[in-house]
């Protein structure tokens, strides 16, 4: 039975790589590993220039509760620690490691472990130490999400396999190729949370993936293909018909949502003590010769990834990290793949949109999955009336992009709303 949430849009799917198997990319010569790859405080560097590291060596330690450690993704030598382009924040401190081509793993990593007998606390610690963060894009430290306060009883764990962003196929391939790992990872989460119910959510454009999961005997909910089906709050609404209260978190309605990639990473951490040092990235767009789903070591630069995919077809006009709806346009091909990078899209042309006057057509209102009035918020932001913008729910915006996508006047509504949100937060701090 296909279910849904209100609002949303149907962008062209363009999932050209859904039939392309995941391929491991050969080791890059150098990696550029940012200390900040997650929501929260950047990790504290643990190594210095000149240090020898192996695959999985911890090079940055979590700093505070909402933070996450980072690990070396190749073996070799730290050649520098300095600022380097970053796909999300523009520029940040990076550990630059030159490969010795040995791909030598840290001791104890990749050795099969028996994790079934571990306690919840031990499993949680493993996930924390492995530097696992949400791989769906937000990169929120996973162990934090798995440690809700005692009074919040979690009854349902939802594993998100929606991958509602157009063009991206990494999660889809992961389900098709590693269903057992994902299911095991999900069961680890389930144990940690002590959640009675485990549900896999998949959109109905990935019925093959749903089939595979079903065959393994887990509960699968098939959802209508609609963007942003994979957004946490919309997903919970569609799967359980529960509405996360404004300003609240999924745990307020007894839920935790984890992405399939995150579940797989957790499985690898538990079974092989493997920290999060690689991830599957969809490389696509008309600007790459051979679009692929690639298993890429964290810290590999976009240009190395693209070159592995046969290079550019034509000079690129736009490089996006993430999907076309929520991804971030990059100013440099030097930016590295980080934990939250689900896709690299290269376009050889990039239409610019002429912004017209708002004609009050209300499309933005009809498609907003959060029930907001983007046109009103944008007008308040334009007039620098941030108080009203907040009253109209600017902070509830999940930046999904549905409004700007469907605006006939081509107003970059999300851009205005993001700016408004930043200003509202800044004014509050004062």
């Amino acid at each position, binding site marked *: 039975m296909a279910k849904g949430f209100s609002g949303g849009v149907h962008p062209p799917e363009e999932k050209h790589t859904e039939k392309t198997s995941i391929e491991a990319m050969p080791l890059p010569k150098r990696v550029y590993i940012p200390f900040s790859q997650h929501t929260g405080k950047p990790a504290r560097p643990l190594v210095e220039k000149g240090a020898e590291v192996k695959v999985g060596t911890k090079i940055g330690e979590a700093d505070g509760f909402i933070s996450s450690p980072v690990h070396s993704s190749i073996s070799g030598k730290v050649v520098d620690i300095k600022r380097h382009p970053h796909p999300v924040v523009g520029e940040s401190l990076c550990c630059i490691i030159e490969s010795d081509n040995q791909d030598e793993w840290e001791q104890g990593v990749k050795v099969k472990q028996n994790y079934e007998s571990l306690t919840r606390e031990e499993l949680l610690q493993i996930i924390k130490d492995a530097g696992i963060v949400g791989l769906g894009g937000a990169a929120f430290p996973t162990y934090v999400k798995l440690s809700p306060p005692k009074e919040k009883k979690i009854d349902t764990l939802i594993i998100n396999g929606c991958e509602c962003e157009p063009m991206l196929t990494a999660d889809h391939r992961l389900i098709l190729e590693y269903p057992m790992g994902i299911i095991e990872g999900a069961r680890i989460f389930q144990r940690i949370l002590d959640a009675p119910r485990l549900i896999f959510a998949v959109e109905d454009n990935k019925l093959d993936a749903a089939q595979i999961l079903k065959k393994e005997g887990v509960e699968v909910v098939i959802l209508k293909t609609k963007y942003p089906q994979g957004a946490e709050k919309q997903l919970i609404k569609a799967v359980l018909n529960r509405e996360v209260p404004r300003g609240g978190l999924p745990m307020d309605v007894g839920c935790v949502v984890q992405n399939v990639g995150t579940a797989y990473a957790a499985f690898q951490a538990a079974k092989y003590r493997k920290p999060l040092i690689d991830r599957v990235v969809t490389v696509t767009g008309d600007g790459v010769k051979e679009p692929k789903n690639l298993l890429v070591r964290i810290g590999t630069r976009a240009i190395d990834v693209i070159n592995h995919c046969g290079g550019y077809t034509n000079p690129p006009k736009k490089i996006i990290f993430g999907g076309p709806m929520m991804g971030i*346009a*990059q100013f440099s091909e030097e930016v590295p793949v980080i934990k939250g990078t689900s896709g690299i899209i290269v376009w050889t042309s990039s239409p610019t949109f002429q912004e017209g006057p708002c*004609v*009050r*057509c209300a499309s933005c209102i009809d498609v907003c999955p959060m*029930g907001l009035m983007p046109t*009103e918020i944008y007008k308040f932001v334009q007039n620098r009336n941030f108080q009203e913008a907040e009253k109209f729910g600017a902070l509830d915006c999940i930046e999904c992009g549905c409004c700007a996508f469907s605006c006939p006047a081509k107003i970059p509504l999300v851009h205005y709303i993001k700016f408004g949100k930043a200003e509202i937060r800044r004014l509050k701090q004062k």
Partner: protein
Amino acid sequence: MKELLQVSASPHIRAKYYDINQAMRLVIIALIPTLIFSTYLFGIRALIIVLISIITSVVCEAVTQRMLGKEITIADGSAVLTGLLLAFNLPPGVPFWLPIIGSAFAIIFAKQLFGGLGYNFINPALAGRAFLMASWPSAMTKEWLAPINGTLSGIDGITSATPLNLLKNPSNYGDPNIIIKQLNDFTTIKSLFIGKVGGCIGETSALLLLIGGVFLIIIGIVDYRIVIGYLGSFILLALILPTKGSLLFHLFSGGLFLGAFFMATDWVTSPITKKGRWIFGIGCGILTMLIRVWGGYPEGVSYSILLMNVFTPLIDRLTKERIFGEIKKERKK
């Protein structure tokens, strides 16, 4: 890096359905069958009036924008649409200077002086029509033409009144009982539906307007809430109010379909909230029927919509959307 990469805010794709220009064009396209049919019915005169109205609109838009030092945006098609809609609301026999004045008023006073497209709070075409009604009432209510192969009233032998006029003052034209009976007769209803009766240039064929309107609803340019709210409340009142016209007579006569599908649904001047659009449509329907039954005019479509336009900002303010996760069922617990 040889070439600069373009950095812009997400989302990086836009819906291909339509931008403003295309939307305007689609609405115009939806009205073209009616225009062709009206030209056939009333002769080339109708087409000339429409063209005069459109050209005046476009020229006025360009000139005012120029004088106000703004970018000239006549290519967006909104002035063309205003001109077209205004002409559709004129009787086919009006003198040629009338559409010039009407559309000049519509564009200059009702649209540009408020800030142009998106800022006008009343529908320019309707404002233009209201202005003409107030200034040249006789030209606006007398210059009817009988359609080819049909009669003005839809009834043989009565040639000086439109059906709604007849309904309002039947005794002026003969035995009221007979006239009313004839008006509600199936042949009259059929003529009304197909459009073989007199009326304004664009309100002739209910059938063609219906097709165009439904097309716009399907592609998402016209909001169904307004249309259903309008027609729904209208139908309800037609059934319960003391009127001599039958339901079908009321539905197919006058400018109801033109108003409900094409004018009440104007983006700029109708509410943006979903609830607001229901209220707006229902309000239009109620007012139209009230005017038809008790008002001083035989037809109430355009005044109803104008009046509701005025209430639009208020409706918007009073009907906010429900934000996801807003606690609603507090009381039930």
